[in-house]
């Protein structure tokens, strides 16, 4: 029996860990255009949370509201019990890593990093010590005297990180900081960022549109669609138990099976399997890797598996695996992920376990 996952009450999984940031009912419109509608989210201390969404989903706006560069039309934000949204950005214990880094071109690396400390009028010796530690942490110590114009994009990004972290904020916001980097550097930085976050121990809120990135780095993912949270859960949870059709399709590949349930059995084209759902229409998400080719070594002859026959329509090489497009006899199209093998042909028998067909809500259409 499968149950539909309710959209997570957006609280951290770990009970007993303190909430750092409490975002309540934030709404924001630009002119007539609603960008955020009633967003509520809690961020735990020490967690790496990614706000994931397409362009136009409102993710950057939400980040900017937390940072203080925009104010919400309604709603509140509490940090450790006190109202954060009433403070101007320069009084919040929040720092931001900007998408284009926003390093000050007229200051060298060292002076960039020490900017916040100088503004706070800390003693010079302390500033020097903290700047030096910060630069060492991001491995940019040898570039202390360089100007931003003379270092690479990846290096600028590290400096931006150091500049934010040196102020020991309670919360670090990162606005798609890796989007300007090429693929290899990106992967490297993802790993580095994650380990940096563990080392420093503060909460990171990371904004991206790249779902792979989100899955690699996050403790939790908050999926935002058209201004509302679609689901908030850990990467594994969100992948294996997507709440809505949108979530299932946005994260990874999936097959959406639109079925009709009568008397405890779901019918989708020629397929049918038992479900514990009321009568009526239902949508199921079935990941391509959960469909196996019957007759392969790992196939089970379990009787409750669903089987169907089909022809290969297309085959895409993904390195370690192939993604096959299968057309079944009755016209149903399925994506299947298998171990790679060249030149597959002919008819195939497919099978999957009903437990892998996760019921999802249809996403509400939002204007």
């Amino acid at each position, binding site marked *: 029996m499968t149950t539909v996952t309710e959209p997570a009450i957006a609280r951290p999984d770990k009970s007993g860990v303190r909430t750092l940031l409490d975002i309540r009912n934030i709404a924001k419109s630009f002119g007539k255009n609603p960008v955020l509608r009633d967003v509520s989210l809690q961020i735990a201390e020490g967690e790496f949370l990614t706000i994931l969404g397409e362009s136009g989903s409102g993710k950057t706006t939400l980040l900017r509201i937390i940072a203080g*560069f925009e104010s919400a039309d309604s709603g509140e934000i509490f940090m450790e019990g006190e109202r954060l949204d009433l403070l*101007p950005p320069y009084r919040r214990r929040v720092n931001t890593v900007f998408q284009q880094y926003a390093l000050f071109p007229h200051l060298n690396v060292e002076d960039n990093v020490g900017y916040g400390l100088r503004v706070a009028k800390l003693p010079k010796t302390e500033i020097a010590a903290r700047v030096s530690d910060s630069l060492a942490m991001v491995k940019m110590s040898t570039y202390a005297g360089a100007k931003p114009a003379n270092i690479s994009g990846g290096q600028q990004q590290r400096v931006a990180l150091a500049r934010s972290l040196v102020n020991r904020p309670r919360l670090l916001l990162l606005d798609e900081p890796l989007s300007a980097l090429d693929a290899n550097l990106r992967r490297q930085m993802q790993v580095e960022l994650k380990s940096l976050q563990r080392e420093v121990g503060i909460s990171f809120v990371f904004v991206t549109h790249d779902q792979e990135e989100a899955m690699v780095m996050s403790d939790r993912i908050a999926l935002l669609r058209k201004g509302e949270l679609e689901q908030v859960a850990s990467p594994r949870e969100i992948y294996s138990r997507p709440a809505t059709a949108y979530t299932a399709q946005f994260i990874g590949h999936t097959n959406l099976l639109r079925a009709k349930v009568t008397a405890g059995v779901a019918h989708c084209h020629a397929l049918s399997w038992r479900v514990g759902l009321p009568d009526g229409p239902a949508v199921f998400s079935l990941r391509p890797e959960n469909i196996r080719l019957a007759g392969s070594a790992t196939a089970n002859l379990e009787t409750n598996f669903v089987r169907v026959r089909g022809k290969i329509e297309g085959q895409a090489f993904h390195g370690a695996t192939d993604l096959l497009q299968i057309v079944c006899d009755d016209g149903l199209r399925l994506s299947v992920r298998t171990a790679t093998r060249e030149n597959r042909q002919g008819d195939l028998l497919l099978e999957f376990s009903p437990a892998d067909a996760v019921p999802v809500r249809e996403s509400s259409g939002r204007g």
Partner: protein
Amino acid sequence: MSAAPGTSRWLPWHAAVVFGFLYLPIVTLIVYSFNGAGVGGFPPRNLTLDWYRMLFADDAIWESVLNSLVVAFAAMAISLSFGIPAALALDRTNFPGKTLFRRLVLLPLILPGIITGLSLLMLFREADVKLSLVTIVLGHGTALISVATTEVFAGLQKMDRAQEEASLDLGANYWQTFWRITIPNLRLSIICAALLIFTLSMDEIAVSFFLIGRDNTLPLEIWGRLRRGITPEINAISSIIFVFSLIAIITWYRLRIVSPAAPGVVAEVVGTA
């Protein structure tokens, strides 16, 4: 809140004061062009159109207007004919002395007009050329090449080079490409340059002062009157000049996709930016 640092309360007041400072003299001028009692004195009395009537009957002024128009159009022709190639040359070629060339072309923009005017006067003197409207045309044309060059150069920066390459690729030669592709793309810059040159030429005094023969241009005619004694008739012609300048400059602004000149203008004008 958005990061709008311009929220200090005194800034709008300051701006208002500066706008006032810039416009009050002009407004005063216009108001007093209707003042029956003369150019000064407060408050204005005897509002009348007499000065305008006097102005329109004043042949010498209109003759000078005609002269100015002729000069302006001729100067436009010269400035554009030499300024457009100059912009192209700066954009596309390299030759020894190019830096000196660029500085020379742009120098009259920032040099006080008196120096340019005097130098040309000496040239005409040595070459035994009589001073007349022609010498004024030569002076304006030369001084305003810089305006044409800067506007067209900016337009070239914004132009899509691939278009010219495509044209050559499709079989057109350089001359054809120039007229069919390059010039139409620069149309906006050329129009803006022409408008600006025209306006500046109509108002030009410093260079014209030294190169004038028997015929006056409008500014010099007004200038001559000023030496003799001022009447609100001058207010009247000034007001009319203001209205025309206003129209010209608003048109120029509207035509342009306004992109303010990049920082380091002096470096651009004089040097190696």
